[in-house]
């Protein structure tokens, strides 16, 4: 019995730690966003509220599990945030950085608590003092009692309430503790609590995880309805709550106040911890809908097969429909399987979200000004790949800030804007995930790299190396060109580890650089399973998939707007732009009735900054498709990102727009239709 309780506790704690880490990330990004929108009070208010809520749920959860240090720090941070929330004071840089360091401390505390290795807890006293001092500075009003609710007390009048609180039996599994709620009520005013034990079953039937009790609470004090609501705000869905204000004032009520069920000195923090029950996988609703659809189809198939049941003779007709039904079942099952697999993929943004903070801190530390641009955060990556991507990317970002982007004065001298730019882009290309980091810093200094390599004995003193070989040197173990070994980088464990990690997940890393202009690092991560949004297009009798991300628009072709030059791709005048037309049928070697540019549809795509009009016969559905690599059983084919299997079991090839552009350029305007 005790074991089981301990297990439950352990499991709930695990969930709490996971959620705390998420909440901290949320706080962090909120704070960083705050710095950027100093002039928009509405937005500030919104952000502060978000941050406050996140801090609040950490505090609640921590208190529930008796993690006092976490609760303490969260509480102090929350007090400061509350001041920001209620006051007209704008958060300044000092407060933001103070709050950011609280995030760090909290993160360390969460780490420490979850590891449970018995080492000393990270120090928190100084931080709490700083937070308090800042809160005091901010708060025009009096120092508030830690246990008091966040609403100002001035407008509150004395009132009496009768509260009926009947938790559903499984409320405890969502991490809510009735006792804590009651305790909180007692902090609001004088209470009389009557327990209702009528639901209590016999001792044999009692399940530890179920809540059988209900309570009727009489509460008297300077309390607003809103305050009571707030106490119960986490358990709204898990309990029956009825709050009535008692109009008549009983003089006896004061006398009853002594019968508190618990000593308020036990000092419970404000609110009960909130947690959604159980699991720790977060799945988009869209994916769940997809899964649901497939289950729906499975049910239909089942009913088709079900009709075959019966005593009738097994004739050819029944056999045929049995066969059809089974084929359908096979297809449904496969689709279902793929759909379930797709639950494993997560947006890469979950990894990228740590970089704004990293860049913020590092650039300060290094005395540089850096703007970070992220794009493609929604690109989906298999969870296993994602987990191994964080560290290499962090290395690369650090490297770029440390070695790449120059100090403001150097940049000014070189005629560049003082603020450097680091862009991180993630996208699908050719069935791979590509993550590109590009900075406009100094680029790789080949002379310095070679000198360093010679110094380290990585190459012989008299060796002559090509630029390519020199670039390759930075991936050598033990190589680092940082002049001073800082805690940012320079310990020589950088690029070789990055490359090894990327290779370990079957990826590639490439680096290109123009000295004085910047460096671009490209990570290619192969994906056995990636799901893309695709536009199905018909060419001849075949269906192809164009990744939706690359499509700008689709237009019906108008002959008058086409201009053709010998030996060049025909051009289409699209508003003020000239867009080269590529006949997909021609590039793909498919015979189609519409090769004449007189009819058909033009799907305008963008690749590498240039536009291209793909001539197709028809537009079909837009849908998510599972990318199947052609390499698995065959080999890479130029112009194709892979293949997918459509609902009817047929195969559609997924186009790699970039590759198509290359193919079209190499064929330059020849509209020759090759036989398939």
């Amino acid at each position, binding site marked *: 019995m005790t074991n089981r309780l301990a297990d439950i506790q352990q499991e709930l704690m695990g969930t709490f730690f996971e959620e705390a880490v998420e909440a901290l990330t949320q706080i962090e990004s909120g704070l960083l966003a705050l710095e950027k929108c100093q002039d928009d009070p509405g937005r500030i208010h919104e952000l502060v509220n978000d941050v406050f809520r996140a801090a609040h749920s950490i505090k609640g959860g921590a208190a529930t599990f008796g993690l006092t240090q976490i609760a303490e720090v969260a509480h102090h941070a929350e007090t400061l945030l509350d001041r920001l929330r209620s006051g007209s004071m704008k958060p300044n840089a000092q407060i933001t950085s103070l709050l950011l360091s609280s995030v760090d401390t909290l993160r360390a505390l969460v780490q420490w608590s979850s590891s449970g290795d018995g080492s000393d807890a990270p120090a928190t006293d100084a931080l709490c003092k700083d937070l308090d001092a800042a809160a005091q500075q901010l708060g025009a009003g009096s120092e508030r009692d830690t246990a008091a609710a966040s609403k100002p007390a001035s407008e509150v009048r004395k009132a009496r309430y009768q509260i009926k609180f009947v938790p559903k039996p499984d409320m405890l599994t969502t991490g809510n503790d009735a006792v804590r709620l009651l305790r909180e009520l007692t902090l609001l005013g004088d209470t009389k609590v009557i327990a209702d034990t009528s639901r209590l079953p016999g001792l044999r039937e009692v399940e530890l995880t179920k809540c059988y009790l209900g309570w009727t609470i009489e509460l008297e004090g300077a309390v607003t309805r809103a305050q009571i609501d707030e106490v119960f705000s986490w358990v709204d869905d898990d309990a029956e709550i009825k709050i009535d204000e008692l109009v008549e004032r009983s003089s006896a009520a004061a006398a009853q106040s002594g019968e508190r069920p618990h000593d308020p000195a036990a000092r419970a923090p404000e609110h009960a911890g909130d947690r959604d029950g159980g699991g720790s996988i977060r799945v988009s609703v869209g994916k769940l809908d997809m899964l649901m659809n497939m289950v729906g189809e499975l049910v239909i198939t089942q009913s088709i097969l079900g009709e075959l049941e019966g005593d009738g003779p097994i004739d050819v007709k029944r056999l045929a429909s049995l066969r059809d039904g089974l084929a359908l079942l*096979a297809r449904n099952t496969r689709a279902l399987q793929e759909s379930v697999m797709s639950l494993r993929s997560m947006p890469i943004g979950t990894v990228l979200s740590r970089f704004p903070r990293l860049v913020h801190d590092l650039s300060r530390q290094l005395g540089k000004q850096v703007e970070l641009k992220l794009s493609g955060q929604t690109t989906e990556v298999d969870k296993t790949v994602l987990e191994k991507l964080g560290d290499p990317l962090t290395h690369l970002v650090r490297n770029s800030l440390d070695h790449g982007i120059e100090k403001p004065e150097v940049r000014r001298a070189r005629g560049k804007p003082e603020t450097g730019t680091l862009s991180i882009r993630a996208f699908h290309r050719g069935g791979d995930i590509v993550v590109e980091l590009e900075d406009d810093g100094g680029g790789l200094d080949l002379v310095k790299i070679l000198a360093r390599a010679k110094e380290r004995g990585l190459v012989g003193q008299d060796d002559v190396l090509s630029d390519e070989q020199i670039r390759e040197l930075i991936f050598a173990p033990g190589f680092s060109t940082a002049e001073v070994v800082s805690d940012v980088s320079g310990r020589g464990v950088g690029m070789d580890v990055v490359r090894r990690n990327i290779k370990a997940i079957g990826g590639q890393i490439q680096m290109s650089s123009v000295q004085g202009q910047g460096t671009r690092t490209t990570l290619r991560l192969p994906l056995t399973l990636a799901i893309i949004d695709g536009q199905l297009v018909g060419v001849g009798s075949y269906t192809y998939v164009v990744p939706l991300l690359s499509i700008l628009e689709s237009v019906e072709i108008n002959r008058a707007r086409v201009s053709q030059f010998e030996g060049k791709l025909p051009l289409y005048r699209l508003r003020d732009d000239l867009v080269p037309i590529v006949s997909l049928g021609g590039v793909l070697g498919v015979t189609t009735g519409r090769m004449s540019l007189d009819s058909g549809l033009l799907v305008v795509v963008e690749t590498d900054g240039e536009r291209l009009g793909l001539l197709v016969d028809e537009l079909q559905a837009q849908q998510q498709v599972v990318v199947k690599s052609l390499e*698995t059983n*065959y080999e890479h084919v130029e112009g194709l990102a892979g293949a997918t299997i459509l609902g009817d079991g047929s195969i*559609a090839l997924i186009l790699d727009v970039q590759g198509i552009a290359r193919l079209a350029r190499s064929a330059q305007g020849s509209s020759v239709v090759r036989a398939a």
Partner: protein
Amino acid sequence: MEQQGSTKLDGTKTASANEQLLTFIVDGEEYGVDILRVQEIRSWSNPMPIPNTPHYIKGVINIRGDVVAIADLRERLGLPKLEYGATTVIVVLRVNAGGHERVMGVIVDAMSDVTNVPQAAIKPPPTFKNSAEGSLAKGIVTLEAAAAEFGGRVPAAV
């Protein structure tokens, strides 16, 4: 429909000294392949053509969710083309290529038989320089009719 015409050949036994071959016919000649490499035999279904590939790669087909390329053995061997018809079959083979197992289909005219061949009876193929068959055939065995036997290297070379 996928299920049509596919026959699982798992569980076939081989005697240690014998090699069991699945034989099939291409342009009137009998060819064989190690039966353990055969995943299944399928009836003809139209493949999705892949652009910019050798002429004998006819495209890809869907085999229970796997995208599998199929090659026409006639065209690979430089034999005259034949209309695909009711007896045309696709032999789906598992092959080792480049360190990992791949699945690919080979289009043949018709299936023939399963034959036990003593390993000793497999003779090395005559060597001709630059001949495709040289790299495709593992050996030749004399049955009632002459039959060339293909080994594991076949599809890798295709």
